[in-house]
């Protein structure tokens, strides 16, 4: 009889993860992954390290800006630097990213400017950058919705005969949404060149991953006909290798692939969240020991690559980016009120034009004598 039982491994134990850098900084070897990072030497690893340090600095700066009332909200990515930088550095310029709200290190790597990155979180615009300039779509807040966009985009790539790929970034929580599962159905049906990149950061706000999935998340996609990889998401080299492999798989006509990057959200869900209500210090401490920056630093130190000088230049770069972020943020000026009526349609319809004009007249009434009187009267 053909009984297909879930395999017995129901945990997301870290020792089952593909890895190239151990938490203590030791360089491990993996015959499947190694070939994909054969070109990564000291200099390349240093660059990845710098990206991660910069990403964390962006995160710290933005969190501070939020605390100072300069941002309406910020979703920290601290802890997920390796997952985001490693995967984003695997991409080509003509690949296209569809992400959720937390992928700010991905945006940084894609070349998004600091001012553009911060617009959304200042409540200034819903989209910080032009997606076509950087090959990264405007982040999607509706959990899971962007996975379908990535698949559709990938279907377009096929129709154009290109060898680019689309990448969908999403979280462990997003795997429960119907959209994410439909995305796998469609991707498999059309062999779409899309990489599903799931950052399993152990939480969807307060809910541990165990509520969303009874199996390692990487076990989900094979049943849809999509091969998967499960990597240590705090290992920048393993993530880079895995993503390169998956992209190659997609580009060469082998269809979609799924990566679960096992990582940890070291900060709160957003600056509005209070994680002490749902997880304990001991757990946070356990993961702190697996910090993605620290292990890369250890490897670089062991190899003698991270000289004081180089560490200083990394810090300087991080400071410069942070300054760019802060200055960019503070320099943002509110848009003109009537701009809220723009870009609802390609051509504003007459009825909406009338609405805008009425509102303009209303605003103007506060300037004229009558308006002033009204104001005074209150």
């Amino acid at each position, binding site marked *: 009889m053909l009984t297909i039982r879930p395999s017995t491994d129901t945990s997301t134990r870290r020792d089952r993860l593909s890895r190239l850098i151990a938490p203590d900084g030791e360089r491990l070897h993996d015959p499947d992954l190694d070939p994909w990072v054969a070109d990564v030497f000291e200099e390349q690893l240093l660059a990845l390290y710098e990206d991660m340090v910069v990403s964390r600095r962006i995160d710290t700066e933005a969190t501070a800006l939020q605390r100072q009332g300069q941002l309406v909200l910020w979703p920290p990515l601290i802890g997920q630097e390796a997952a985001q930088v490693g995967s984003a550095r695997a991409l080509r310029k003509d690949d*296209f990213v*569809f992400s959720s709200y937390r992928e700010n290190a991905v945006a940084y790597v894609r070349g998004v400017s600091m001012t553009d990155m911060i617009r959304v979180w200042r409540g200034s*615009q*819903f*989209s910080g950058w*032009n*997606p*076509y300039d950087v090959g990264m*779509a*405007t982040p*999607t807040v*509706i959990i899971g*919705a962007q*996975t*379908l*966009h*990535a*698949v*559709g*985009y*990938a*279907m*377009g*790539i*096929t*129709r*154009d005969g290109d060898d680019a790929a*689309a990448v969908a970034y999403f979280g462990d929580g997003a795997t429960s949404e*119907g*959209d994410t599962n*439909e*995305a796998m*159905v*469609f991707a498999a*049906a059309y062999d779409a060149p899309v990489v599903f990149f799931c950052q399993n950061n152990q939480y969807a706000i307060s809910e541990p991953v165990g509520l969303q999935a009874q199996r390692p998340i990487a076990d989900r996609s094979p049943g849809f006909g999509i091969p998967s990889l499960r990597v240590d998401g705090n290992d920048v080299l393993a993530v880079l290798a895995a993503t390169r492999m998956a992209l190659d798989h997609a580009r060469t006509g082998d269809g979609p692939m799924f990566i679960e990057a096992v990582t940890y959200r070291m900060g709160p869900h957003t600056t509005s969240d209070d994680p002490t209500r749902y997880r304990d210090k001991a757990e946070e401490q356990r993961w702190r020991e697996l910090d993605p920056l620290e292990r890369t630093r250890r490897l670089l130190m062991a190899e003698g690559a991270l000289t004081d000088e180089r560490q200083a230049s990394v810090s300087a770069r991080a400071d410069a980016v942070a300054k760019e972020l802060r200055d960019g943020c503070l320099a943002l000026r509110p848009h003109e009120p009537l701009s809220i009526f*723009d*870009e*609802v*349609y*390609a051509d504003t*319809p*007459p*009825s*909406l034009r*009338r609405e805008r004009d009425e509102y303009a007249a209303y605003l103007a009434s506060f300037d004229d004598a009558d308006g002033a009187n009204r104001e005074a009267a209150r």
Partner: protein
Amino acid sequence: MTELTLAKAITTGLADALEADDRVVLLGEDIGKLGGVFRVTDGLQERFGIDRVVDTPLAEAGIIGTAVGLAYRGFRPVCELQFDGFVFPGFDQVVTQVAKMRYRTQGAVKMPITIRVPFGGGIGSVEHHSESPEAYFAHTPGLRVVACSSPQDAYSMIRQAVESDDPVVFFEPKRRYWSKGEVVTDVSAVPSLDRARVVVPGTDVTLVTYGPLVQTAVDAALAAEDDGVSIEVIDLRSLAPLDEDAIVDSVQKTGRIVIAHEAARFGGIGAEIAAMVTERCFDRLTAPPLRVTGHDIPYPPSELEDHYLPDLDRMLDGVDRVMGVRV
């Protein structure tokens, strides 16, 4: 100029759109070999290939969501939702993504997606196959919501919808699919997609409707003529945005308005039109705007659907009321 059924007019429009622009892609359940459950895409997959006329897995969010991705990549997807009652599993992608993407991105990302929905009742079918969900879409800024009522409009409007850089929810009056009419395929001279049309000119009462009820309204106007009442029938064509001026112009002339649709009355398109007309024509109105609509109940089992659907008699009853004949 050829005589076509309304369904075939859409088929022809889709074929011409596929021919005119190779970025046009059709997506939907059973639209390939089967040609769709109403055969509207009949023959198109054979002619344009499986990459342009795409049978999709059975998942409406998937259809709309992948269309968003295709649009992101510069395609012009045309999605078919099989029946009115099956739009809701895809509703989130329509409301939170399709409708808002241009606004969200300050115009950087266009969503030239057409979502075709066969709608309305009167076909004696089972649950979910006879509904009129247009008001849900019309209340959603960023969407254009249109309904065609004649073969000519079916042809021209589907061409315009596909060419529009805005997302268009395109309602097709399924019980009129087999009604015939002359169709010219030159769309350079046809009215733009957002304009209403005076179908029957008149002077006493404005009767506004769309989709399947336009023919009923025309019949009502003919019948009323015998009673000496002159009805001006307006086919809205665009439900959102509304061609307010066309309606207002008519009411300025007649002073009375009846609005008819199959959807439930509460919060339907008729409410918006009544409110708007009252705002803009208050002093001219000699009677309150009156709605002749589906009742505020779910669409009933088909054996009683005639008691749900506005028909000629109910329209004339409405006209009598605004004329003060009945109260």
